[in-house]
């Protein structure tokens, strides 16, 4: 299957007229895709366009309703023959496939341990692999105890180490920080150089341009275009994804917050042992303050403390001059703090409940007297959220587990904003959200700020941070830099890496 | 709502004429009650009764109540039941009394409420007989282990109390280890094993139900090499209760020494006899009966026909009138 043998090389992987429906939802409609051997192929599209569904067909987790999948010109193995699939394709799935109660080492070599497991050797192999990918994780640790980012790195290391000649990465970067992404890209380029074929999914279009040679766009379950990346510029790509011929608008500078505006959120001397120390931050009403830092900087723990998920060992959080009782979400809510938690699957959503119910959990009390929750009013509110935040769903009563990743994230944001909080704490709010939705999400945050909400936004994404009035950079549990609007990307990256000053 | 007489002829086992008579079996998992269940249709046929298909309440009082209601809906004119839980049946009895459906209680006596007749053997006498037999055999001293039933069972309680009273008053030299077993053979076996480790000189066993305890006990004694003839000083004297054929076999082989034969055949026969008598409107007085038993008035309005329950030993084990010698085999 080398190119040298002739022009009629079969595609490394091919989906031919595949369709897939879930109940009344058509997730894929007659989509065809062929990936040339050795190429790095990008798959883009808005949330719910059908990307992950296509991945599930290409990895044999689900069979198509119609159409077929082929590898190297030969039909794909039957869905039941998992071993055959695994020899053809490795995948980093969008949803975590880590088994929390097993060790990191075992997760890395799941079902590849050999018939008789030699634990010492397995741990050493795992340690070598992790070292190779520069993941600072103990192979003997329980996988469920890892942070989101470490878990993602373990999944990536697992997929890349399987030795398959075709690798799919479904939004691998959504949960990684900048340095980790750089390292990943280095690794992908090296693999590509050895002739490995890749399918890469991301909502960061600059990443598509950085690592891919060809791009395929899906829109509303249909194939829209396939072209070399060099032939489609950024605006054209966005237009293909959204179906509108409008480019992205640049981030509008926000009017500075007036000097006399009262402080809405004050953190004084906030300390959480082993995580962060003596954090003093004031956020004024209407101000958006960004917080960034590397994986172990303590930024997430800080945000979770403000949201009431953790109890600080010292220091206080005050909202509008009143101290907030620590370590209690209801108290934080009562004080007017809304939170978008880090992991939407773990602490963001109740999968079996409807979109409407998930989005309105904190404000259920407002839908009627004596705790009565009027379904009509709840549905109406939810419908307004679905419109405002552009949530792609079959309706307010659909279970939130049927949503695509990005749309689920929008439900979490809708929930945090539902109570019209005076302080909004966001942790990676746009993780896994498509470009256009990202705009509308951040637009909603800006609108909230414009209405006087103080926003504390923890994010690794420069695009998110660009909407902030100032950005605090944390390093090893301390704020090491405060950058006013107008910073350059390199300034932030340098501060995050701890090389500034 | 529903009064008697509205139900059409729903008797499941047709053939015979006359008022339908219902029987509820208390359980289907013990040899004694299974023998009883086999005798019921046989005697019903013999005396030409219109017997409805017997129901089974699986030792569950709620099921018994439900069965009773279903049977009355289907037109039963008399009900034979064996309420193992003797307290919980009071309300049902009151309701049946209101509807003028006579009840014959077999094996147990309701704690409260009236029935037409109680047909049972005297369970206190079982405990008494076992105690006297063991006491005599052991010469008034030694150690005896007793497998009790469940504390919530009136029959078990009667046997335990009578046994304990008799032992303490007549044979104070005998130490009794009373083991609660919930009628489970495995529990009895475990208790015996533990006690034998603790007191290797145990020389008597009283088991309140041969059906469940016989095989586990013999098996354990066999593995401990304690199944020896009475002449051997290591012999453990065993008194059982029920009178199933396997107990008789064990007596013949000298593995156990005695059992109290609880008359399954007479239970069935006289339960149906009294049910028919009730439908026919007959009445009975306390005193001797024509079948070798005594009717006693246990409280106002409650008569009990106390059937004889013979102690079976090597001497009379081949008596062909014993029910255990009549079935199967």
């Amino acid at each position: 299957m080398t190119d040298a043998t002739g022009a009629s090389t079969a595609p490394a992987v091919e989906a031919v007229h595949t369709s897939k429906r879930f109940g009344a939802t058509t997730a894929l409609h007659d989509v065809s895709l062929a990936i040339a051997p050795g190429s790095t192929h990008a798959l883009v599209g808005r949330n719910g366009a059908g990307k992950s569904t296509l991945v599930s067909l290409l990895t044999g987790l689900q069979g198509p309703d119609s159409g077929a999948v082929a590898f190297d010109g030969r039909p794909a193995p039957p869905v039941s023959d998992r071993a055959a699939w695994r020899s053809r394709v490795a995948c980093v799935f969008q949803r975590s496939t880590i088994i929390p109660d097993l060790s990191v080492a075992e997760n890395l070599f799941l079902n590849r341990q050999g018939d008789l497991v030699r634990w010492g050797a397995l741990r050493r192999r795992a340690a070598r692999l992790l070292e190779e990918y520069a993941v600072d994780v103990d192979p003997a640790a329980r996988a469920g105890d890892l942070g989101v980012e470490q878990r993602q790195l373990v999944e990536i290391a697992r997929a890349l180490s399987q030795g398959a000649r075709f690798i799919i990465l479904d939004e691998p970067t959504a949960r990684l920080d900048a340095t980790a992404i750089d390292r990943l890209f280095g690794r992908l380029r090296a693999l590509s150089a050895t002739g490995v074929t890749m399918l890469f999914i991301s909502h960061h279009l600059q990443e598509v341009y950085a690592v891919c040679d060809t791009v395929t766009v899906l829109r509303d379950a249909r194939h829209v275009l396939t072209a070399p990346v060099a032939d489609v510029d950024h605006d054209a790509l966005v237009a293909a994804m959204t179906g509108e011929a409008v480019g992205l608008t640049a981030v509008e500078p926000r009017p500075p917050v007036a000097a006399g505006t009262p402080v809405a959120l004050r953190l004084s001397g906030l300390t959480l042992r082993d995580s962060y120390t003596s954090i003093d931050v004031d956020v004024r009403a209407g101000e958006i303050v960004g917080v960034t830092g590397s994986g172990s900087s303590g930024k997430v723990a800080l945000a979770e403390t403000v949201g009431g998920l953790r109890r600080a060992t010292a220091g206080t959080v005050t909202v509008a001059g009143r101290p907030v009782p620590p370590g209690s979400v209801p108290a934080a809510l009562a004080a007017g703090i809304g939170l978008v938690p880090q992991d939407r699957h773990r602490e963001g959503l109740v999968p079996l409940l409807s979109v409407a119910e998930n989005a309105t959990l904190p404000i259920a009390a407002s839908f009627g007297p004596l705790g009565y929750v009027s379904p009509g009013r709840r549905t109406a509110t939810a419908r307004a959220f679905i419109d405002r935040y552009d949530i792609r769903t079959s309706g307010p009563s659909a279970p939130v587990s049927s949503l695509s990743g990005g749309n689920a994230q929008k439900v979490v944001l809708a929930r945090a904003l539902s109570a019209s909080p005076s302080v909004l704490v966001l942790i990676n709010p746009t993780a896994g959200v498509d470009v256009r939705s990202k705009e509308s999400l951040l637009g909603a945050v800006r609108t909230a700020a414009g209405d006087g909400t103080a926003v504390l936004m923890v994010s690794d994404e420069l695009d998110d941070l660009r909407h902030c009035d100032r950005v605090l950079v944390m390093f090893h549990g301390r704020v090491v830099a405060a950058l006013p609007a107008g910073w350059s990307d390199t300034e932030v990256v340098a501060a995050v890496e701890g090389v500034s000053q | 709502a529903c009064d008697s007489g509205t139900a059409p002829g729903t008797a499941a086992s047709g053939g015979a004429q006359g008022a339908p008579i219902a029987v509820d079996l208390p359980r289907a998992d013990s040899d004694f009650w299974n023998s009883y269940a086999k005798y019921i249709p046989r005697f019903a046929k013999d005396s030409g009764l219109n017997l409805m298909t017997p129901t089974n309440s699986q030792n569950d009082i709620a099921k018994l109540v439900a069965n009773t209601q279903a049977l009355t809906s289907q037109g039963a004119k008399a009900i034979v039941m064996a309420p193992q839980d003797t307290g919980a049946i009071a309300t049902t009895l009151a309701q049946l009394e209101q509807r003028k459906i006579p009840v014959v209680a077999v094996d147990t006596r309701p704690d409260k409420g009236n029935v037409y007749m109680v047909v049972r053997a005297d369970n206190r006498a079982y405990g008494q007989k076992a105690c006297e037999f063991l006491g005599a055999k052991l010469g008034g001293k030694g150690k005896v282990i007793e497998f009790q039933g469940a504390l919530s069972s009136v029959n078990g309680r009667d046997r335990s109390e009578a046994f304990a009273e008799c032992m303490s008053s007549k044979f104070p030299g005998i130490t009794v280890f009373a083991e609660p077993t919930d009628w489970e053979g495995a529990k009895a076996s475990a208790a015996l094993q533990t006690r034998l480790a603790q007191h290797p000189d145990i020389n008597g066993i009283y088991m309140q139900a041969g059906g469940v305890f016989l095989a586990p006990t013999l098996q354990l004694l066999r593995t401990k090499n304690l199944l020896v003839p009475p002449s051997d000083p290591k012999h453990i004297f065993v008194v059982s209760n029920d009178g199933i054929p396997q107990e008789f076999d064990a007596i013949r082989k000298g593995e156990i020494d005695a059992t109290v034969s609880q008359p399954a055949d007479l239970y069935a026969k006289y339960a149906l006899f009294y049910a028919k008598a009730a439908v026919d409107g007959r009445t009975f007085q306390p005193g001797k009966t024509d079948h070798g038993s005594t009717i006693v008035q246990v409280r106002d309005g409650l008569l009990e026909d106390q059937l004889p329950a013979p102690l079976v030993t090597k001497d009379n084990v081949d008596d062909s009138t014993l029910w255990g010698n009549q079935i199967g085999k």
Partner: protein
Amino acid sequence: MTTVPARLSGIRLARMRDLTLVPAIVVLLVVGAVVDPVFLSSANIVNVLQQQTELSLLVLAETVILIGGRFDLSLESTVGLAPALGVALVIPAASNGLGTSWPSALAVPIILLVGLLVGALNGLLILRFGLSAFIVTLGMLIVLRGLQIGITGGQNLFELPPSVLYLGNATWLGLPLSIWLCGLLFALGIAALGWFRHGRAVYAIGGNVDAARAAGIRSDRVIWIVFMVGGVLAALAGLLMTGRLGSVAAAQGQGMIFTVFAAAVIGGVSMDGGKGTLFGALCGVLVLGLINNILTLAGVSAQWIQAVYGLIILVALILARVTTGKAQDS
């Protein structure tokens, strides 16, 4: 991807899952009528309903606890202990009482209070000490059953004050009071779980306790209350049973918990939490009750009745699965 048909079908599906057992109930009603015309008589139907009242209260309690993602095995022992203690405290020692001879008006309040305390204790051990609900309530089951035997010496109590007898015996407008009571409590429960904030919170906690907590739900408090309500309902079931049977049996309630789980799970309640409805659970209770009644009326031989009963449950399940096309979870 049009949304309108999707929305309709979503609603349809949710409703359908609730109605899964309705065809089974209809089939059972037809079969029952064929087996014996007595079956459809109002007397028989009332009997079936009344016999299921205590079970249905336990199912109500267990369903709410299961939806909240927990477990309670000790309900069946509360059915026995609560009335036993309540009665033993007010009757004279001669009738197997404890000799305290408290005023008999206290019996019913004590019974309900015992249920409340048992629920509170379960909640305390599970939530404060972080113990497994299965094991705590299993231990509690054994302890409570043991306490009942200890207190009563294994005797049945049958000198009951009239207040204790009332609920299980009274008839209102031609129907047993216990049926009215069950109907009312189920209606309340369905309303609370379906349309009230705290009821919805139970679903959220059972579905994902971390997310519920992050959304500001005081999950420990809600679950604690659920356990206490469960205990009170179990005590109430015990009260009804005591009244209906006219005594507190030493083994009262024993073995019920299996049937409770069976009814709830057949009715579509998940053992994993967050899923199921009270209406479904009630249907589960009815199905089991009808099967029992029909088997009795049909006069299935005592030797085979249990096998037939189990088989019908299995077949009913497979049918429910086929008609709704929805896989259940373990």
